[in-house]
């Protein structure tokens, strides 16, 4: 009888391979470090709360869901990210500490076959996403008032795991600019952690109900086994019951 599990590639092998790759990528390391320059980091959660009014045709999130307009070779998605900036706050960006909300939309290209149709990734069973632009607006509730601004950059579903069959990490980078009288700008970089299910053997197992993040950087809270961080109740959307992606972002000026 044919297995209905879909992916057959050992997730352990993928995790190990990916860990080796990202382990040598200093730009992605957001663990605690000495204060230098003007930076600030935060952990955000991708919610699906913005989905209802804007779901069609934009989907519900760059990491969670999206729509695929015929013949365009791209996935369109929208997302709302909420969290707090305050990790490794240094220099001028210390004043950016506080709750942050980001509304963003992305246009991600995907790999196509010879006929121009989307290629289905054998490891994930999903359309094989590559990279594309992301832009949006953010608002930070700082101790001295609200700071609003925009961001423009690139989301890359492949960069952190070159050669790996699938990647539970998405890199983001680009520029940000605040609005208002004290207009300022800088760059940002980040990593999104996409939750996935595993069984007791560490293999991908859709429907097992055991959800994990792959976090070789050690930045995500929660019960951890090596690079795997198990989702807790707080990591599931309270309304929808769906697991939520985490996004660690660092602003630099």
């Amino acid at each position: 009888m044919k297995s209905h599990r879909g992916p057959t590639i050992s997730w352990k092998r993928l995790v190990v391979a990916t860990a080796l790759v990202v382990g040598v990528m200093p730009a992605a390391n957001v663990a605690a470090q000495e204060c230098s320059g003007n930076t600030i980091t935060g952990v955000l959660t991708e919610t699906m709360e913005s989905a209802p009014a804007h779901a069609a045709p934009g989907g519900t999130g760059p990491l969670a869901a999206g729509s695929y307009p015929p013949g365009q070779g791209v996935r369109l998605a929208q997302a709302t990210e909420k969290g707090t900036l305050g990790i490794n706050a240094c220099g001028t960006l210390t004043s950016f500490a506080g709750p942050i909300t980001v509304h963003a939309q992305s246009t991600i290209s995907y790999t196509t076959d010879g006929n121009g149709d989307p290629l289905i990734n054998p490891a994930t069973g999903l359309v094989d996403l590559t990279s594309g632009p992301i832009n949006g607006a953010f608002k930070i509730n700082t101790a001295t008032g609200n700071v609003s601004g925009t961001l423009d950059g690139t989301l890359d579903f492949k960069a952190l795991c070159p050669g790996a069959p699938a990647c539970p990490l998405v890199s983001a980078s680009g520029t940000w600019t605040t609005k208002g009288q004290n207009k300022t700008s800088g760059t940002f970089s980040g990593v999104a952690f996409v939750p996935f299910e595993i069984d007791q053997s560490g293999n991908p197992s859709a429907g097992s109900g055991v959800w994990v993040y792959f976090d070789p950087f050690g930045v995500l809270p929660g019960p951890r086994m090596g690079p795997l961080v198990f989702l807790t109740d707080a990591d599931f959307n309270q309304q929808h019951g769906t697991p939520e992606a985490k996004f660690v972002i660092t602003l630099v000026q």
Partner: protein
Amino acid sequence: MNAMAGPQAETLETLGRLRLHGPLTAGTSRRVRQLLGDHVDHQARLLVDLQAVTALDATGVAALLQAQRAVGRREHGLLVLRPNRIVSDALKHSRTISAFVLWNG
């Protein structure tokens, strides 16, 4: 900073969830249509988890498209599919993948 701006709020409807198991084929399509129809009738926003689907033929795709159309007629209607490889391949080969919103989780 806009201290004069009033609070903003939006009403959030719950996203219903339906998990389908086994084959979505000619032999089961009647039951699948019934299940989807029942949920769509009561839920304008529905996540259909297809990770445990073992087969999907034209009748199964047709049932999903019918649900998609029904949801599309609702205000703020949303149907999100969570496919596995079998489903993704079937949607791709039937050239219907662009008709759906897909969830990667």
